[in-house]
Structure formats: structure tokens, C-alpha cells
């Protein structure tokens, strides 16, 4: 499931080809890389409100996370429910009042012993997020 997180652009860092868009989603900063062309065509400006789309298959989960990691986006959440599939499972977790999803393998779910009520850290690279303007 793709989650839609409504946030505000706080900074745009353009380069020759790309732009790093820094967004504040409630109290959590998010970082999204888009092409400069997309940034211009969408008319993105600091202060704009938009949606950050997070695909469940792009979300990595960690428990008791520590250490350094290159991924910019880390979101703390609490597992609400888990839908078990044949090979994959969908973990729904709540963070800052929004429901987000992570699609992970059953093996990881078992190895990490993830269950309802557990605290998890969701990790997504900046290049995996999609921006959407306008209505939901």
C-alpha cells in the first residue's frame, strides 16, 4: 500500500540534474530526490504543501536500530497490525497519527520477531520517494 504523507517543502537544494527536496511531515523531516526537470515542471517552491508517496515495497523496517546508515528517511512507529501472505507480509504501523505500510518477507518478519505493539524504525532512501501535488 502506498502511504500519502502530507508535508511542507522547507528547502530545495538544486543541482545540475537533480534537486533534493526537504519536507517537513508533521515533526519529521523527509528528503526526496527528484530530477530538476520534475521540480521545475511541478513548479515546486519552498512553503508549498504536497504529498510524499511511500510504496510499501520500498520501506525497510528495523528494530532497536542503532549505528550509521546512508538512507536519509527514518520514521519511528508502532506496529498496528500484520497481514500475512504466502511469501510477503504487510506490516501496518502508526507514526505521528498516520498509518504507513511496509511489505517485507515472511522470513524477515519471523527473524525480527515483529509483532503488534512493537516499536519499529521505517527506513526509505530519498531516491525511492515520489512527490504528488494537488488533491488526494
Amino acid at each position: 500500500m502506498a502511504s500519502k504523507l502530507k508535508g511542507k517543502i522547507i528547502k530545495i537544494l538544486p543541482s545540475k540534474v537533480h534537486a533534493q527536496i526537504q519536507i517537513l511531515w508533521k515533526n519529521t523531516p523527509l528528503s526526496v530526490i527528484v530530477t530538476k526537470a520534475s521540480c521545475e515542471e511541478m513548479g515546486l517552491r519552498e512553503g508549498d504543501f504536497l504529498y510524499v508517496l511511500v510504496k510499501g515495497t520500498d520501506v525497510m523496517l528495523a528494530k532497536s536500530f542503532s549505528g550509521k546508515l546512508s538512507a536519509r528517511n527514518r520514521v519511528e512507529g508502532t506496529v498496528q497490525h500484520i497481514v500475512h501472505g504466502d511469501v510477503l507480509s504487510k506490516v501496518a504501523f502508526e507514526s505521528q497519527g498516520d498509518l504507513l505500510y511496509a511489505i517485507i518477507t515472511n522470513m524477515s518478519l519471523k527473524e525480527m520477531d515483529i509483532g503488534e505493539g512493537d516499536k519499529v524504525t521505517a527506513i526509505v532512501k530519498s531516491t525511492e520517494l515520489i512527490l504528488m501535488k494537488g488533491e488526494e
Partner: protein
Amino acid sequence: MLSILLKKTWNTFHLDVDFTIPKGKITILFGPSGAGKSSILRFISGLERPDDGLICYEHATWFDKERNIHLPPQQRAIGFVFQDYALFPHMTIEQNVSYGIEEKKNKRNEVDKLLSLVGLSGYEDYYPSQLSGGQKQRVALIRALAKKPDLLLMDEPLSAVDWETRRQLQEDLKHIIRSFGVTTLYVTHDVAEVHKLADKVVVLQSGKIVKEGTPEEVFLGKRLSTRIQLAGKVVGIEYDSIMAIVTVLHAEQYFKTLIDAEEVEKLRLRIGEDVIIGAKSSDVVLFKTTVSI
């Protein structure tokens, strides 16, 4: 260029449009049933008269309420292709096509050339009832083009043929219309058809124009940051546990997308639905197709 300004009121429905059709291009009038698309075609062709407006083709005025000008259909140099083909059932294919050709000389040659253009050489002596839906629509198209019209009007020409034939005909229509360079106004409510055929699209809702531009500007636009945005049609949905594989047909290519099964239900995705595939340019891999020896 054809410029159109039309106003018409039927009881509680008000049609009020103002748009242009670029010369030699395919413009698509897109919208749901009852939006007023077919009525616009009837006003342009002269079959009906609007309450008010102005219709000009280049320097010629076809309709002007103020100056009381209303050219009859036969003086507007228009070719019309309908959804139900409108071929003469008692005439052979050759007679149907040659009906549209005014010059007496080389009539037979002209018919042969046109039939060969749509792959129907050898069908001269057939009757419409002996042809498939796709073949009938090809005949209807060349009959309309045989008159060398200034403007070609097509009212949902492919809605009566099956899906596979429709796909093939879209390619053929595009090729034929472009080779004639005829200014075309085409009515459809199929988004995939818009992307395949249109140079310009005019979106109509409840008698008003709500958007116009290229198909990319109108449908894909500037809402998503993904550089890859492909308009297509859902042709398959296969559930696999918590996930679903949604197959989308875009430009003769099948794209298999992996979606959360719950999302398929939430979006109410169905086979035949028009969708846009969005993907980040950083999510693709490229392979060379050439083999080095």
C-alpha cells in the same frame, strides 16, 4: 485552423464552448457521455444550428449568428465517420468508396489506391455485410477521405469494434489521417485512444471545456514527480496472496506492475480501466540489446 464558438441551451443543459482545431492535426474531444461532444460535431457539420456562436474555417465563415450565416452541410467540405459506419448496404465496397469521389476520371484508380491504403485490395465487389467491423470502419474512413475534405469529423468511430481490432485500427487511423494531413476532430471517452492519436485534447464536462492541451499536459501533467509516466489500460489483475499483479497495456507493450492487493480494491481498479504508470527514473535498469561479436 477551425475556430469554434458555440452556445446552445436545451431545457436545463447549457452548452458553451470556445476552442480551436489546428490545421492538419488530430484534435480529440474527450468527455463522458452526455457532455455535449456529439452535439458539437452536429453544429460544426451544419446538421444542427446553435443558439449563438461563430464557426470559421481559415477565412471562410460556416456559421455566424450575428450575420445570419449558416452554410448547409454540403458547402462545408466535411468528411464524417460514425460509430455505426453508415455504409450503404446495397452498394459494393467499390461503389461505397467511389460515392465520395467527385471526379469522374480515374475514379477506379482512386478507389484502388484508397483500398490498398487500408489493406482491402480485392474487396471491391464485396458488400458491407460481408466485412468485419474493423474492415467496415476502414471503408467508412477512406470514403470520407475520398472527398478530400477540409475537416474530418469522427464520432467514437471505434466504439463498436472489439478491443483487439480497436488497438490495430487506432494505429491504422493515425497513419492514414496523418498521411492525408487532414484537420481532424475526433470524439472519444477512451483515455488510451487520446494518448495514441491526439495532437491536442479538449476535455468537455457538462457542456463546458474544463481543460485543453496536449495529452501529456492534460492527463499526465505536473502532479507527479516521476519522470516515467505511461498512460495505458488495465488488461489483467491477478491476485497473489497480499499482492496483485496488474498488467497494463501501453503502446502495444504489456507492463506488469506489483501492487498491494488492498490498493487494487481501494482504487477500484477494473479491467479496461485507464491508468497511468508512474515510475522513478532511478528505478529502471538498462541493458544493451546489441550483441558484440
